[in-house]
């Protein structure tokens, strides 16, 4: 059968040539459109390292000096501190709230701001004899007012996999570190009680948590949580609600009832925003949502073009071969056999077109690299990982496979639709019309 099909394809090479060229162009175009989508989807599957569900941030805002509600006598640090303490206490008293945490401004996973620093590890030396320095993302919290950042985020202990166990030393500054930090600094994770140093002094490591993703779509990297002795002047308030609470009803209740309890001085509560919503917002803000839409539109366009190309070519060929098909049917060929012949022809065209397209794609990747849908800052600072999008050959193979399967399915569907129409014809009709 294959020989007959190849013979048939060669005889109709002029018409097939157009479809072949289109399939080569579509393969290249589709590969380039799918590549950024693949990267974003693959990066979207990187575990956050904390429990994002049921996690909320309280949004506080301040009346500007020119606002009707502004009061000059309340515009000082002591009133501000009192208002924020009151807000923390008010949130803790909400019956649906399980944990409350504080952090410095938006400096928490997917919070929108990023602080980096480095610590010196006295006990580990580099090859040139210097103390090892570990660069990392820094989060801050106080845990001085009954607030518990690690529990609020649901961090897990890197040694046990259970909720994070903290062994604080009240005589020195305490520091929680992530698994990557521990491995880079000491080469192991059981480092509770070890010391690291920064310009403020020594820090006691009071726990090791599993890595958390700081910014959406980036690989988790070394991070630390500094436990400040007192609440920062510019802290943000986060909280986790209990399991089983109806989130929609809670959000409505917060807006109508709880938000007013948090107001004071020149501050008012604008509402709450879930961590999941912040992640989605970040996707839009950094343009990833638009990249997704654009590349999806281009992918759909290429597939529709391929589909129309296959349908029109095979439909015309099927019409031109009505007599052949009539003869085949009269000597006992089933309609399935005719459909199979057309589908095989389409599949062979796709295979050859894709083989021709691959060197072109490889040349593009070699010369210009893979797509880079992350913004320039993140691209520069993101570290390589073992994830599929960071291993070149796996990345290339995965995108090629996805592209090939999609084109094949579209071509097979297009050929089958055209063939089924003609395969149902009665042999007598086909031969009489000729």
């Amino acid at each position: 059968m294959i020989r007959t099909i190849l013979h048939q394809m060669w005889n109709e090479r002029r018409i097939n040539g157009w479809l072949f060229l289109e399939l080569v162009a579509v393969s290249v175009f589709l590969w380039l459109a799918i590549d950024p989508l693949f990267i974003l989807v693959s990066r979207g599957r990187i575990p956050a390292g904390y429990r994002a569900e049921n996690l909320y941030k309280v949004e506080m805002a301040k009346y500007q000096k020119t606002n009707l509600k502004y009061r000059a006598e309340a515009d000082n640090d002591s009133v501000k501190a009192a208002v924020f303490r009151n807000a923390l206490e008010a949130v803790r008293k909400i019956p649906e709230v399980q944990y409350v945490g504080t952090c410095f401004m938006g400096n928490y996973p997917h919070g929108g701001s990023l602080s980096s620093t480095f610590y010196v590890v006295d006990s580990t030396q580099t090859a040139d004899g210097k103390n090892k320095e570990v660069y990392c993302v820094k989060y801050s919290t106080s845990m001085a007012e009954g607030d518990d950042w690690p529990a609020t985020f649901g961090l897990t202990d890197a040694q046990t996999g259970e909720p994070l166990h903290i062994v604080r030393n009240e005589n020195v500054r305490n520091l929680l570190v992530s698994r990557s930090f521990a491995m880079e600094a000491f080469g192991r994770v059981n480092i509770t009680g070890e010391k690291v140093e920064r310009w403020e002094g020594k820090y006691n490591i009071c726990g090791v948590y599993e890595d958390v993703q700081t910014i959406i779509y980036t690989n988790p990297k070394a991070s630390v949580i500094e436990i400040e002795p007192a609440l920062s002047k510019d802290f943000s308030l986060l909280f986790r609600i209990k399991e089983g609470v109806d989130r929609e009803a809670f959000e409505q209740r917060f807006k109508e009832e709880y938000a007013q309890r948090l107001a004071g001085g020149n501050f008012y509560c604008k509402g709450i925003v879930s961590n999941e919503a912040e992640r989605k917002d970040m996707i839009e803000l950094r343009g990833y949502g638009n990249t997704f839409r654009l590349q999806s539109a281009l992918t759909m366009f290429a597939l529709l073009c391929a589909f129309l190309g296959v349908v029109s070519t095979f439909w015309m060929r099927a019409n031109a071969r009505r007599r052949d098909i009539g003869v085949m049917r009269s000597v006992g060929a089933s309609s399935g056999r005719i459909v199979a012949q057309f589908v095989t022809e389409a599949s062979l065209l796709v295979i050859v077109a894709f083989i021709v397209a691959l060197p072109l794609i490889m040349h593009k990747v070699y010369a210009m690299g893979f797509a880079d849908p992350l913004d320039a800052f993140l691209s520069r600072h993101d570290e390589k990982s073992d994830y599929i999008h960071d291993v070149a050959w796996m990345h290339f193979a995965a995108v090629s496979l996805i592209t090939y399967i999609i084109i094949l399915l579209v071509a097979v569907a297009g050929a089958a639709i055209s063939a089924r129409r003609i395969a149902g014809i009665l042999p007598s009709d086909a031969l009489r019309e000729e």
Partner: protein
Amino acid sequence: MIRHYLRQAWAMMRQNRLFSAIYIVGTGLSVALAMTLFIIFYIKLGPVYPEYNRSRIVYLDQITHVIEHGNNYTAMNRAASQSLCERLRTIEGCEALAMVAGSYRYDFSVNELNECRGLFVNNDFWRVYDFKFVAGGPFGDTQSAAVVVSADFAMELFRATDVVGKEIIVNNTRNRIAGVVESPGGCTPKCYAQFWLPSSHTLCEGEREAHPIIGGFRVAMLCRSSGETAAVIAEVKSTIERLAQEQPEGNSFEAKIGEHWKLALGIEEDGATLLDALSKYIYILLALLFIPSLNLGGMIASRMAGRMDEIGVRKAFGATNGSVLSQVLCENLLLTALGALLGLLLAYLITLSASSWILALFDGRVNRMAPENVITVEMLFNPTIIAITMLLTLVLNLMAAVVPTLFALRKSITYSLYNKR
């Protein structure tokens, strides 16, 4: 003759309905995406209300005071921008100079509303931007207690647009409405606001006004013609250099100056041209045209194979290759034009239904605080968009039909006539 070809094309179109449908859909798909691309860039770069003078405007969008071994301060306060503007106004080719402060991120309290968007502008603002006044007119430079509001904002506040003479309280201060303008949309963020106050208004002074430069002012200069923008930019740069030389040692200025298109596309390189900036989109456009044209070319090649006898007869009666080619092009033009019309309607549908995000489709970052885009009829139905659609139709028709027809015409008359037997 063309009429005859078109009548024949119409008859063939009705005869081969599936062929015609696939052809029209294929063309429509290509034109829809290509035109969506064009519409996005037309709205971002073309003359749209109230930024009809985009090609003639030069922006001094941001100026940074760089202090050696110290902090850098970005943006200008009123005093700094006024003193700079006095120098810039004398530049040859500058027709008007608008000072604009407060951005669309700025929140005001107006009457009982907390978050409204306002701008502080000088009198030249109304010359640089072509606002249509539905009532009243612009305020003068000296009128510090006047305000111009947009029609939508007037409706929100008073349920009417004829509100000249009424008062609104902006940030605790009473302002008399001097004029009401047709509402601009978020597609023109440089001048978008719900209300505009005179730049002499004291409320725009920020907390950090003490610093010699910090503030929220930017400058928009209207040049006499678009050809003069390069010269004006060069002159602005040299003016800022002279200003820097007057500062104490270790102080300098870095300015972000450019035409509208440069700032809209985020281009910072000095020598970059519009073509350089748009080159990556041109590749997308070529792909949008090339792939469907291969598809359509294949379909025409199939049809030409079935019409070899007709071509043979026509050539036997003296028709030249040129006349047969023009016949095929004419016939296909009907299908391509119908596809293009479908595509243009689809492009309008895509643009309108995705108006909230589609203009930022090619932007690296999306501004969370950006005002809502309003796509108007004027932006979609204008001569430029129609002309581009017609051009695309012709290009697509040529790309799809010429090669397969020429291939068919290479055959001899006898081969063509024998082919039917």
